[in-house]
């Protein structure tokens, strides 16, 4: 290779706004059709989640008991104004889906953030300090792997009560061990990298190495794990609802709509199908994007 610098977008770092836009366009161009689809879905879902109160035709908890279990548009007994039909209490399925999407995304994001901080922090500590700390944390990881998480969720909800805050906590704890394992693995790999030794040789302290050199380098695998975690949380939340310990009525989340509505699958399938499709879209989009991110990260590494 000749001694010339590789092509580089000049000024990308100076003009972040412009750079971000260019970045987006670049990303779009680079994506294949399925990734584009995922991007589109993600964007649409995000927008309708954020603007749910504006978009939703009804309050999500407003009941009209006489018009319960009405089917969506195009079916017999359809009732005007309830595009996707009504549920077992005569609430608007569409409105609940929209608000549910909002809450589900919020829960999943918060949960994934907590897991990231908790698991990532422990993994970082474990990987950097090693020794006894490492043994203890990894022991906890082993134990966590061996206990079914549904059980932990059950116990936590029993101990702390089943409020939304506790639900966030539960969802946050979910997957911490995966973050911890990944971070620890990455940290240990990074600790072997010459640039860490270079930093030590330059006189960098442990803290500086952790935060300036290691942390930025585990961002990519963490982002990938984060996306997977989000979709797993969405699924977990619906499983908890299935078991009757999810987000509590009348609050709607996609998971609770599916979990609680399942008894109506044979008689009023729209109650389940609409949120199930939303879940499918969310997890599908998030995972495709996550996987794509992983590929991009890998390319970086392979390029060297």
């Amino acid at each position, binding site marked *: *290779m*000749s*001694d*010339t*610098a*590789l092509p*580089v977008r*000049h000024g*990308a*770092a*100076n003009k972040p706004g412009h750079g971000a836009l260019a970045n987006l366009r670049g990303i779009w161009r680079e994506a294949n059709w399925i990734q584009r689809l995922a991007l589109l879905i993600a964007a649409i879902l995000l927008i309708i989640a954020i603007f749910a109160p504006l978009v939703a035709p009804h309050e999500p908890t407003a009941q009209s008991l006489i018009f319960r279990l009405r089917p969506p548009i195009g079916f017999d007994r359809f009732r005007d104004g309830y595009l996707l039909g009504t549920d077992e209490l005569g609430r608007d399925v569409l409105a609940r889906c929209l608000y549910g999407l909002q809450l589900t995304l919020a829960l999943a994001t918060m949960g994934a953030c907590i897991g990231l901080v908790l698991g990532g922090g422990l993994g970082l500590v474990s990987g950097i300090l090693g020794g006894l700390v490492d043994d203890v944390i990894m022991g906890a990881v082993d134990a966590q792997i061996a206990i079914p998480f549904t059980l932990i969720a059950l116990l936590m909800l029993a101990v702390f009560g089943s409020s939304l805050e506790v639900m966030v906590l539960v969802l946050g704890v979910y997957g911490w061990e995966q973050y911890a394992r990944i971070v620890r693995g990455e940290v240990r790999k990074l600790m072997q*990298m*010459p*640039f860490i*030794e*270079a*930093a*030590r*040789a*330059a*006189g*960098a*302290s442990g803290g*500086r190495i952790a935060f*300036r*050199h290691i942390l*930025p*380098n585990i*961002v990519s695998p963490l982002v990938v794990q984060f996306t997977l975690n989000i979709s797993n949380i969405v699924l977990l939340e619906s499983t908890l609802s299935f078991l009757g310990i999810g987000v509590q009525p009348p609050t709607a989340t996609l998971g609770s709509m599916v979990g609680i509505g399942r008894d109506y699958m044979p008689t009023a399938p729209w109650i389940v199908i609409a949120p199930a499709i939303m879940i499918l879209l969310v997890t599908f989009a998030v995972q495709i994007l996550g996987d794509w991110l992983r590929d991009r990260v890998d390319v*970086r590494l392979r*390029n*060297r």
Partner: protein
Amino acid sequence: MSDLLSVKNLHVAFGSNEAVSDLSFDVPARRTLALVGESGSGKSATALSILRLIEREGGTITGGSIMLNDGDGTVDITALDEQGLQRLRGNRISMVFQEPMTSLNPVLTIGDQMSEVFIRHRNMTKREAYDASRQALDSVRIPEAARRVEQYPHELSGGLRQRVMIAMALACRPKLLIADEPSTALDVTTQAEILDLLRDLQAEIGMAVLFITHDMGVVAEIADRVVVLRHGRKVEDANVETLFAAPKAAYSRQLMAATPKLGSGSPAAPPPRGNILEVSGMTTRFKMRGRMFSGHGATVDAVKNVSLVLGKGETLGLVGESGCGKSTLARSVLRLIEPASGTIALDGNDVTNLGREGLRGLRRHAQMVFQDPYASLNPRLAVHELVTEPARIHNLVSSCDQRELAAELVRSVGLEEDVIDRFAHQFSGGQRQRLCIARAMSVKPKLIVADEPVSALDVSIARQVTDLMLELQQREQVSFLFISHDIAVVERVSQRIAVMYAGEIVETGPAQSILNDPRHPYTRQLLASVPRPDPARRRRLGHANPAAPSAPVPRAGTVLFEAAPGHFVREDAA
């Protein structure tokens, strides 16, 4: 003499990127053609095209023909179908790759991997194939061939693995062997053995060899004819003697010039101004940790009782084969690893027992540059943060002056100022190494320990980097502890040389004194193995036996004596 292989107007492209353009050359039967050129010039792409493996790598042959004309008739390889190619590969043409460490399948035994070839092309039964494999291993002079077939690749050393690769390639007595940098990843001594072996086997089997390398020394050793590539184009095609005597193309001349030649002289010694570094009696010990067995107590001394001094403004070159403890010594000197015993003095101050704060002081004055320029730069930091980091750590620069300092530093290593907002992956290898050096220079250290700083670079770029180091030494009076396994490079930059073997320094002294008057047998062997870029002076070594120790096993407790002024040799060098 008819040509075994003729490549005509070959074009190879990766996507829209043309890697090989309009390349034509012939390989005569029983002769060796060397394909030379720097990294990325299309050597491997050409080789892979001949076996039509290039498609697997994502490339395509976009034009030209590759005719193979051995006794069994003429075929155009570019037109063969998959079946035909499979019959060809490993049978009429075979190939040896650069990386012996990764080119063998880690989960299959040597025997499994070798016998496949016999089963495939010679229709042997499993038993017969195993027997044949054993013989093939014998024929590449691998000791204890019977045991080797049961072993897995990771149980063999690099040299042995490369022999296995060669045995495998020669299993069916191919008419053409393609060797893609078969010795680059090996120690000089091992490299010499492999080259000898190849030459002998070529004579024995009577095959043609297409030899790919970027090392002009190796070319001089082995080739009959040479094709020089640059950016995928042929720039010269000549007999080896002609090429070395009178290179026609400018690029060939440049390549020759950059090639370090042993015996081309060392920099002059600086005026004595005292020592920057004094190490005495240093031993560094590693605990052995098996994966399955938690063996406790087992230790290995990677560095044994080493003493050395380094004058101010001077460069001490440290040479020795892989695993002899060079890096460990370098790290111990900077106390990145704690030595088990011995003392280290930097600029007259004892730093052996410094605490955390004191170590910061040590690192203010002593910096390090590593072998792999990519891996030693944090990929997530911008250049202005990268190169100024040591200075920031030692509070030599405020955050507002950081960019200025960075600009100054990159200029001093010959880069444009505007690179300071880029990231490491946006640079080439040589530029990255410059950044590493700039980083080390940011604190204006008195000592830089450079652990194989140019081993990963192409010759011409390595040359630029060593030139830069010499220039910096001139300008800043910085001292270097320069580690390399390439003795020719060491000669170019060092006033003094230390030779390390199995954790000990066996010989040390002024560069020219060591090179011209080696006393220790290991030093002699090392020097003899270095390929000379001069076809007239080909080495004629006997067949080295890799199982036999290549130098006497050092006895413990031996000390150095002065054999000539400043030239110390270990006592056992009888």
